[in-house]
C-alpha cells in the first residue's frame, strides 16, 4: 500500500469511560460513532464504509442507520481495529468507498447486551486447553512469561516496573481509571492472580468504546481536525491456542505485523516519537519491544525498569496509561489507536512534544493475532 494516501479525520471515545451501567454494548457503539462523526463534522449519511468486531456490521449499521457499500467484520480479538484501519485504507485507495467508520464498544464490566464467550467442547481449544483449567485471559495470556523470563534473564521486578511506569502516564490523564502512584513493591505485593502475575500486572475490566473515521488524504485537508495519515500497516495471525505458539520467546504474529508496517512506512526505529503496545498484561510491552525490533529481548525489561518509556523518557510508551491503568473493556486496540491519533493531533493529556510519528501495535486473543499501524501528522 502507498503511504500517507489515507487519513484519520474523525476520532472519539464514548462520552464516558469506566463503569457505564446506563448503556448497552450496542448503544456504546452508537455513542462512540456519533462522537466521531461530530468530531469529523460529518453526517451519518456521509459514511459509505463500515467496520467493526464482535458485534456484526449489520447490527451496528442498522442501529445507527448507516447504508454502507463496503463492510469489514474482521474479528480477531483486541487488535481487530488495527486490521480494520489497514483494510479500510486499502479499500479507500481501491475506490470501494470514500468515508469509513470503524467502531468498537464493549460492556466489559457491566455486561449489558454483551454475549458471553463460550468455548465449544469439540473445538480444538475445548479439547486440548479447556480441560486443564484455563478460565479467562489471566489464566492463559501469562503462560509464556516464565519461559520468556528464563530465556532472556528478565526479572519479576522488571515486569512489575511496566505497571509502575504506566501508572505515571495515567496520573496525567483525567480519563484514566487508575491514577494513584504505585511502586514495584506495591505490584509485587498485590493479590496473586496467575503466577507470576499479580493483580496490578493484569489489565482493568471496564466499559467503553471508540470510533475512527478515515478518508483519502486528498479529501482530509477539508476536515476540521488536523489529518493523521496512515503511513504504514501490518497484520497477521498465529494460533487461537496459546499452547501451540511456535515459541514462547517471541510472538510470530507480532514479528510479522510490526516489520511489515515499518517497511511500508519506510521508517527506522529511531524515527519513532511515540509508541503504543497493547498491554493486556505486563509482559506484552517486552514482547513488543523485542518483536518490533526496537532492541534485543534481553534488554527489554531493563529498558522499561530504567525509565526509558516513562514521561520524559526517550521512548514514550503507552502514554494514556495503557490497558493496565487507563481502561480495558476487553478489546483495547481501539483505545491504543485513539491515543496515537491524539498524540499526532497534539491534543493528548500527556502530550509528547513535537511527536511526528506514532507506532500503534495491537494483539488479539492470547498472541493469536496482531496488527500494527504507523501514523504521522506530516504528509
Amino acid at each position: 500500500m502507498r503511504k500517507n494516501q489515507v487519513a484519520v479525520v474523525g476520532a472519539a471515545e464514548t462520552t464516558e469511560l469506566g463503569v457505564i451501567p446506563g448503556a448497552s454494548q450496542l448503544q456504546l457503539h452508537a455513542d462512540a460513532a456519533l462522537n466521531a462523526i461530530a468530531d469529523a463534522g460529518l453526517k451519518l449519511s456521509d459514511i459509505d464504509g463500515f467496520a467493526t468486531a464482535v458485534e456484526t456490521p449489520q447490527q451496528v449499521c442498522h442501529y445507527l442507520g448507516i447504508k454502507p457499500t463496503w463492510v469489514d467484520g474482521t474479528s480477531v480479538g483486541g487488535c481487530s481495529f488495527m486490521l480494520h484501519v489497514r483494510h479500510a485504507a486499502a479499500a479507500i485507495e481501491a475506490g470501494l468507498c470514500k468515508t469509513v467508520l470503524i467502531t468498537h464498544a464493549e460492556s466489559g464490566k457491566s455486561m449489558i447486551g454483551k454475549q458471553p464467550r463460550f468455548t465449544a467442547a469439540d473445538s480444538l481449544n475445548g479439547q486440548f486447553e479447556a480441560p486443564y483449567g484455563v478460565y479467562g485471559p489471566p489464566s492463559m495470556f501469562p503462560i509464556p512469561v516464565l519461559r520468556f523470563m528464563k530465556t532472556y534473564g528478565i526479572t519479576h521486578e522488571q515486569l512489575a516496573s511496566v505497571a509502575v511506569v504506566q501508572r505515571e502516564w495515567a496520573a496525567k490523564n483525567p480519563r484514566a481509571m487508575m491514577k494513584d502512584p504505585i511502586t514495584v513493591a506495591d505490584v509485587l505485593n498485590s493479590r496473586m492472580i496467575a503466577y507470576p502475575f499479580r493483580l496490578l500486572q493484569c489489565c482493568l475490566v471496564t466499559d467503553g468504546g471508540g470510533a475512527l473515521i478515515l478518508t483519502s488524504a486528498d479529501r482530509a485537508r477539508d476536515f476540521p481536525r488536523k489529518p493523521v495519515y496512515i503511513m504504514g500497516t501490518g497484520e497477521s495471525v498465529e494460533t487461537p491456542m496459546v499452547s501451540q505458539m511456535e515459541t514462547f520467546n517471541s510472538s510470530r504474529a507480532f514479528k510479522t505485523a510490526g516489520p511489515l508496517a515499518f517497511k511500508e512506512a519506510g521508517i527506522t526505529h529511531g524515527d519513532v516519537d511515540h509508541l503504543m503496545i497493547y498491554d493486556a498484561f505486563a509482559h506484552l510491552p517486552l514482547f513488543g519491544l523485542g518483536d518490533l525490533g526496537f532492541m534485543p529481548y534481553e534488554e527489554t525489561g531493563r529498558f522499561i525498569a530504567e525509565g526509558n518509556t516513562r514521561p520524559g523518557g526517550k521512548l514514550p510508551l503507552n502514554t494514556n496509561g495503557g490497558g493496565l491503568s487507563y481502561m480495558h473493556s476487553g478489546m483495547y486496540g481501539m483505545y491504543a489507536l485513539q491515543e496515537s491519533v491524539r498524540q499526532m493531533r497534539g491534543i493528548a493529556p500527556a502530550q509528547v512534544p513535537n511527536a511526528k510519528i506514532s507506532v500503534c501495535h495491537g494483539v488479539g486473543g492470547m498472541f493469536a493475532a496482531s496488527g500494527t499501524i504507523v501514523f504521522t501528522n506530516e504528509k
Partner: protein
Amino acid sequence: MAEPQRARPKPTPETQHFWDGTKAGELRLQRCDACAHVYFPPRPFCPSCASRKVSVFKASGKGFLYSYVINHRPAAPGFTPPYAIAVVELDEGPRMMSNIIDCPQTPEALELDMKLEVAFQELDDKIALPVFRPAKG
C-alpha cells in the same frame, strides 16, 4: 446440587484416534509420511507440507516443562486453586497444554525444563485426559 464439572473434551472425527489412545493408556501423535514432521493437535494432513499421507504412532510420553502459570483466580469449574496450567514439550517435538500431578503446585517445585512423563486421568467412562508427572529417576 452437583459439583461444577471440569470441562470435558468432545472428540471430532479428526481427533477420535487421540482420545481412543488416551483411553487405552497411550499418547498418540501423528507423523507425516512425506516429510516426517511430527505434529499436534490432530488433523488428517501435515501442517508443514500439506500431504494427506500421515500416520498415527504411540509417543514416548516423555517431555519437559516448557512454561506454566499457577492459577489462583478465577478458578475454572472443577479446579481447586492454586493449580498449575502447564505447557509440556514432548521429546517428539510438539507441545501440549497439561496439568502437572504428583508435584506441589509451587514455583519452587515446578522448575522449568524438569523432565516429565505422561499419566492418564479418567474423567468419565469415555474420556481419559493426558496429564504429566515428574519423571522417575
